[in-house]
């Protein structure tokens, strides 16, 4: 029997490592809408090092299905410690790949996680311009 969700999805759903809020976040992204069932809030802490901007820490809140929660956590795992440039290059296929697989109907969840990251970076850019 192939379970509905992969082992990795269940693991990240039940025990997300990056859950919560960063009080002194440099960027916050909130995406999704209650109508589709998923709302994600992403917090990033950015550190500048040799003219590089590194995502030092990242945390999330997600109201949504198991896939939305697991992809949120996986997106955080994938971008933590990376430069913003590198982080933005991560696409939804990378997130799905790391999670083993997702049911076809849940692929959009991984897109949401990526959108969340993009929104958080945009917020960071806006704030750092000021």
């Amino acid at each position, binding site marked *: 029997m192939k379970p509905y969700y992969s082992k990795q999805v269940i693991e990240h759903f039940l025990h997300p490592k990056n859950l919560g809020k960063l009080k002194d976040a440099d960027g916050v992204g909130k995406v999704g809408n209650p109508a589709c*069932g998923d709302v994600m809030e992403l917090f990033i802490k950015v550190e500048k090092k040799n003219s590089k901007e590194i995502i030092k820490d990242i945390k999330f809140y997600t109201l949504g*299905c198991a896939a939305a929660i697991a992809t949120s956590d996986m997106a955080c795992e994938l971008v933590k410690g990376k430069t913003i440039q590198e982080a933005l290059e991560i696409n939804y296929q990378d997130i799905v790949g790391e999670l083993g697989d997702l049911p076809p109907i849940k692929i959009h969840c991984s897109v949401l996680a990526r959108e969340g990251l993009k929104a958080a970076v945009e917020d960071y850019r806006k704030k750092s311009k000021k």
Partner: protein
Amino acid sequence: MAKIYLDYAATTPLNPNVFKAMLPYLKQDFGNTSSIHSLGQQALGAIDEARAVLADFLGCDAQEIIFTGSATEANNLAVLGTVQAVKNKQPHVITTPIEHHAVLEPCRELEKQGVEVSYLPVDKEGLVTLADVKKALKPNTVLVSIMYANNEVGAIQPIQEIGQLIKKTSPKILFHTDAVQAVNYLDCNVEKLGVDLLTLSAHKIYGPKGVGALFVKNGILIKPLIYGGGQEAGLRSGTENVAGIVGLASAIKEIQNPKHKIQNIRTRQFRDKLIKNILKIIPDAHLNGSLVHRLPNNVNISFRGVEGEAIVIALDQKGIAASTGSACSSKSLEPSHVLLAMGFSEEEAHGSLRITLGRPTTPKDLERLLKVLPPIIQKLRQISGYQL
């Protein structure tokens, strides 16, 4: 750890007596009812007997029972078959937005063909009012289709009163009810209910999958969906699923057994205790649907700040099988159309958990659920950042 099944509105396990009744027709008594030799006639005799059992249960004539391959097929036959058979050039159909997709989709198909369909409003408890039915009836109304009991929130509609109202308005208007969820618990006497068509399913009542039935009152014009050998009075061609039909009848006989009537009272007590306990233990939770006009086995509760799907997956990890609104919802991302129709916001509609009890359910099962559920909700609220 033994698994706990609490999704009896989705489907039920086969009753051992039903299985025993079916077995000969899967083995040595494999005849085709259309064959004139003894093996064939034996099969024909078996489905005639089954027809008589259903007729007794529904209080109708045996020839008014049409066996189908599913309740979905029976609903399609009821809706499409009747409307497409009427001579009226501009037929009007009345239904509700909380029907099963097996009624809603044929209605949408009719709309595509130019038929006018009215969707009655339902109140916050999921109930249709007589006043709204009365208001919706038109001179060209040919069919009213209203489910007996809802699969998601268990709301029981006043079918008998609606039936009387319709017949008083015009005896020509056909009244169909999808009784799939009701059969196990409610009086399905078609004369009492005043219905012309009634759908039922075997696999929701501890019978086999792949068989349903439609009661079609004598004299009603109905166009078949499937053409061929002319079985089931020409309304449903195809060699009969003899074992399945025998299983359906056997499952109906079980319902008539007083033992199960007593069990239904017990189920209702379990339900009430479970609802009370969940609402007591978990904050920001509310019951969806009516408490009074509710199936004895249905619990449907929304938890703020949590998605229903996530609860179901977390419960599954603990060996408990439950559901969001409807099993079909797992194939679509839309929030429950039933809760939306009842006036809930999309956010609220996403957060519902359906627990449906069955004959094998024990107090121990529910104690276990009550132990496992609160930490799951707490954890998911932590994940969503929900503040109590």
